[in-house]
Structure formats: structure tokens, C-alpha cells
């Protein structure tokens, strides 16, 4: 399927391995990425708290650019993008006069947003468009002995009604489902749906890092080998800042954190290096050791 692809900014900034691994994984899943390289940052909720109309206009612009492509829908790879964009879209879709007002600003660039765009995070797309059975069928290297803790990021699980989470779309279970479809073991721990603390890192650094450290520690206590997240901002606080979080909570952690496309890529047979896993601050040693073991197992299976 062809999708209008919004990689977000952090995936091309401090977490380039996310953008890179998505590009590697997409063809294996028959996803054609039509990259929207003129689209701007979603504002991550921060621009909205500064000026709501500005955030809504920026995102209406992104939606309009998506609608100009021939993609079936728009896809993002960032929980925060999903949440921040959904919030703006809800206002734009709810009120015709407001949408017209915003479109007036976009007119100078020859753009116009029409109500009703479909915008899905890669996680949602995996489950709802590709399907778990199809995903499972493509697995060449099941994550047999890997204990994976899901870490969603707030913006992709709350508020539930705004994100369309309901009995028919239990999107707050999808990470667990995907881990299982890839052959891994889901680790339940206290932090699954909590906040990594990133938004207050410049305001209350200590509280922010304490949040990250606590969830990592809880996952460690639950014997997780690694965490997986669909959010690059969570990744910043959980991986890049992990050494600082260790200091704040006074505990060694060493918990690798994978981006969702990396986890999928591993199971689809890509090598850790191809997926940029050497770029992580906490080297995913447990995962890499394990891959080597399973590469061996795969050779057995062929024999």
C-alpha cells in the first residue's frame, strides 16, 4: 500500500535510526512510503500551548500536503505526532467555520485541508491495515526468547475517545499483539502506559528523569530484555538520557530500548546493524546476543 509518510522531526534529528529502520522495513511489508518532505513539525503539543491556532494551521498544512499525494492514508512513526495531530484534527474537523478560517491562511501556499483525513501511526497500520496474520507470515526470525516490555507513550493511548480507542479498535493492546505476532514474550510492568517525562525535561529535570528511571527500573524488575516504543521522544528520555536517569534514581539500569520498526525488522530477518541499533546509547546487547543465537537456530531449521 502507498502511504503519505510523515516521519516527524526527531526521527531525522536525534533518533535517525528510527527513520532509517522504517525505510528498511517498509518494503518488506509492501508499504510504499511517499515522504512529505515539505511538512513541518507537528508542534508536539508545545506550540498548541503557546498558540492553538498556530498549531492547528501547521498541522492542517501537513494534512493538506498528505491529501495532495496519492497515498491511501497518512502514516506517522511517532506517538507524539499521532496525539498532537489528532488533537488539532479534531478541532479542524469539528467546526466548518474554523476550518475555513485556517484554510484561508494556507491559501497563500495554494493548500487546502478537506475534513476527514486518516492518519495512523505505524503501529495502528500494522494491526489494522496489514494485519497480524500477514505480519506473522513474514517473520523469518521469531523473537522466541526475547522478553519485550511495551512502552506506548502518552499521546498514543490518551485520551481514548479522541484517539478512537474502543472495543472495535483496542489500540492500547496493539503493541502487546505485535510483540506476540513476532514471536516475542510480552512483559507486563507498571510503566506500560505511563509518561517518560520528556515534556518537562527543561522545566523540572529531576522529576522528568525520575519518571524515565522508574519505568526502566520496573521493566528491569519484571525481567524485560528490552523495551519497545512507537515514540522517538520517549526514546530520547528512555535511551539517550538513561545514564542521567540512572544517576537520579541511584540505580544501574542498562535497559535497551528499541524503536518499533527495529523490533519488526529484527523479526523480518534484518541485522541489528542495518537497523541502526549500534546508534543507541544503551547498546541492545541482550537483543543482539539473542539474534546471533537465533540466526544459528535458523540455520538448524534449514538443515
Amino acid at each position: 500500500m502507498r502511504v503519505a509518510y510523515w516521519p516527524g522531526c526527531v526521527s531525522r534529528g536525534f533518533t535517525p535510526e528510527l527513520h532509517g529502520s522504517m525505510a528498511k522495513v517498509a518494503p518488506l511489508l509492501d508499504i510504499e512510503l511517499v515522504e512529505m518532505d515539505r511538512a513541518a513539525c507537528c508542534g508536539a503539543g508545545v506550540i498548541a500551548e503557546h498558540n492553538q491556532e498556530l498549531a492547528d494551521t501547521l498541522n492542517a498544512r501537513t494534512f493538506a500536503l498528505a491529501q495532495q499525494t496519492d497515498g491511501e492514508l497518512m502514516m506517522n512513526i511517532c506517538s507524539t505526532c499521532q496525539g498532537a495531530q489528532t488533537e488539532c484534527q479534531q478541532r479542524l474537523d469539528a467546526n466548518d467555520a474554523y476550518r475555513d478560517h485556517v484554510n484561508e491562511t494556507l491559501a497563500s501556499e495554494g493548500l487546502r485541508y478537506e475534513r476527514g483525513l486518516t492518519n495512523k501511526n505505524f503501529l495502528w497500520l500494522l494491526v489494522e491495515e496489514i494485519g497480524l496474520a500477514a505480519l506473522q507470515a513474514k517473520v523469518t526470525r521469531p523473537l522466541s526468547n526475547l522478553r519485550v516490555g511495551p512502552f506506548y507513550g502518552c499521546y498514543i493511548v490518551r485520551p481514548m475517545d479522541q484517539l478512537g480507542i474502543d472495543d472495535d479498535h483496542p489500540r492500547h493492546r496493539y503493541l502487546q499483539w505485535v510483540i506476540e505476532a513476532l514471536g516475542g514474550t510480552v512483559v507486563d510492568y507498571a510503566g506500560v502506559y505511563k509518561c517518560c517525562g520528556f515534556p518537562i525535561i527543561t522545566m523540572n529535570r529531576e522529576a522528568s528523569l525520575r519518571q524515565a528511571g522508574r519505568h526502566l527500573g520496573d521493566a528491569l524488575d519484571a525481567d524485560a530484555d528490552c523495551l519497545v516504543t512507537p515514540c522517538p521522544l520517549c526514546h530520547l528520555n528512555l535511551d539517550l538520557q538513561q545514564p542521567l536517569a540512572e544517576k537520579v534514581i541511584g540505580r544501574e539500569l542498562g535497559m535497551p530500548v528499541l524503536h518499533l520498526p527495529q523490533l519488526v525488522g529484527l523479526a523480518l530477518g534484518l541485522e541489528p546493524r542495518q537497523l541502526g541499533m549500534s546508534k543507541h546509547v544503551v547498546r541492545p546487547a541482550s537483543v543482539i546476543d539473542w539474534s546471533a543465537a537465533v540466526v544459528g537456530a535458523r540455520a538448524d531449521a534449514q538443515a
Partner: protein
Amino acid sequence: MTRSLSGYTLRLRRFDPESGKGPYWQEFKVELEGHRSVLDAILKLRDEVDGSIGIRCSCRQAICGSCGVRINDKPGLACHTHLERAAQAASEGSRVIQVEPMGNMPVIKDLIVDMDAVHWKKIRRVTPWLINKQPVPEREYIVSHESMVDVTQSMGCIQCGACVSDCLSMEVDPEFIGPAQLAKAYRFVGDPRDARQYERLKDLAEDPHGIYDCTHCWMCIDACPKDVAPMSQIMRLRRLAGSEHQIEDRNNGHRHEHAFTENIARNGLLHEADLLSDSYGGKLSPRAVPVLLGSLPVILRALMRRKITLGHALLHPYRRRYKDLRQLFESIERRERRYELNLYVSGYDGAEPAQAAGNGPAMVATGTSGVGAGQAPREEGEDI
């Protein structure tokens, strides 16, 4: 019409400080109609099985805010949760309804928490009363309808504490003022009769545990049984403090917001390395130095792992694609009034809300085929 009784299993968290024992779980079976509330079930158990079960309640119709508990890991009102729905929401299809006391507050007994020690103490912190503009009119204040509509959402609060229970900032920073509390603060900050808008905002912005200590996690929005959306009220407070009153707080809250927005206007995409220093007043600002030094190891590590290149840390590689963006920013920021849409007040055009995120099939306007999109705001007068 007779409604049939069904059997439900309740798993209650018990704790009696006088027993000298720690908290424990206890399971009970109860027969009631599925549309009856979790509170009804607990009261029935208390009447018929175990008189020692502790729970607080009064109105039994979602008005008084006494019966806040956690049901299946989610905070809410026991009297406002149907048994059948709670059973369906139970973990892993077990249908066992798990009820425990709210979080972030000390437990007094069983399901009763100490609201005074946390919730009410923090409510008093925000000066929860009107400070009149002088001179006080001889008779009533005349206030336009529109100017009060803005604070109606925060007035809907029934002080149940559900939002406080699961606030993720409070979990790591017990001194955080809190969601219901800041919603209450907005109720007066947004009131046209109040004389102290600036002072209130200054106070809440300067407090290291104030409006900039909220981590924007949306927990309180999902927790609230009254659609108060405390987080949205906190964002309103930030907009007023920063954009309206230009309050430069010592928590760098406003500066961070401003730096972020400026960063996007300049670069189109977020340029993290710039943001860090700008949030503290620019690379050369004295406030930035300790922070930059503090984050140097992080940036160095990122450079070492080839996560980022030196060029990226200093320059933004995508900037030239976004020449038109500056104009868009300026045209909106130049407006005399900030344009703000509150769906709680304005409601949705047409009978149904637009589709929720991505549940619709196609790219362009598809009407209202979506499911479960945001709840339509309540009709006026429905809430008590």
C-alpha cells in the same frame, strides 16, 4: 420490564490500619442487575456480607464526588460505573471487577483515602475564591454570558480526586500542585470579575511545582468523570501566563515554549540542539551554561554513536525547505486576539462528531463513518 440478576465477582483491596496487618485482596460474589453501579454492589456487600468494608459515598448519582476509587486500574466514581461495563473491562476477560483506593493519596481504610492530606490542601494552595475587582458594585456584577462560558468547563469539577489519583507528575513529584487544583485556578484566572489574574498566573508560573511541572500526559483528561479536562485548563493557564502576560518564569517554561515555536519557525523541523540552549535563553545566556555543560555528555555520546553529526548539532540540514513557514507563523502571531476553539463550548458541526483518529476509510472527506470520536459536549444544564 424486569431486568435479570447476574453474578459478579468483586476483588476489593482491604486495609485496616488498626489490625496491624498490611493491605490484602479479598474476593466477593454479588448478584445484581448489570446496569447497577459498582457502588451499589459494594454497599450490598457491606449490608449483607461484611459490615466492615470501608467506602465513602453520599449522593450515589455522580454529584457529590465522594466515591472516587480505582476500578480495573482506572480512576473513576464507583456510583457512576455500571457493573456490566466494569466486568467487560476487567483484565484478560476475567470479568473480575477489581476495586482499590485512589493513588497519590494515603489510604485511611479500605477504599477510603485521605483527601485532606493531599487534595484539599492543594486546593487551598490556589486561592480558590474570587478576589473582587474594586470598587465592588452596590448590587450584582453584570457579566456577559460569553465571558463566563470560558470557565464553565472548570466549574464542572465535583472534587472527586480521580485526576489527582493518577496524575503522573504527582507520582514522581508529590509537591506538584495537581490537576483539579490547577483547573480550579483557571476557574478564577478566567473569571472576568477577578482582580488578580496576573498575580495568580505569576505565582503558578514561578512555582517549580506549578503549571510548568505538568508533563502533559493526558491522564487527568481520561480520569475525569465530569469532562473538566484539567490538562486543557493547565494549557490555558500557560498560554495566558506566557503569551498574554509575558511572564518569564524561573522554570524556563515560557522560554522553552517560545524557543520551541521559534525553532520550528526557523527550521521547519525541530532542531533539538538549538532548542536546548534556546530554552534557557540562548547559547550565550548565563543560565544556559550549566545546563549545556550538564547535557554535554549526552550530546557527546550521541555524536560518538554517530546518532548525530557535528554538522547536525550546529546547523539544521532541512532548513531551506521551509522558507514559506516564517510567513505563516507571523501572520498568525500578529493577530490581535489569539483564536481559540474549545470544543467543550462550541460543540461539533452536524449531528455527529467527525471521525476519530484514522478510523475512517479514506483520504478525503468521508462524512461521519468514524466510531467513538470525541464525546459531544454536554447540553447546557445537563450537568449539575
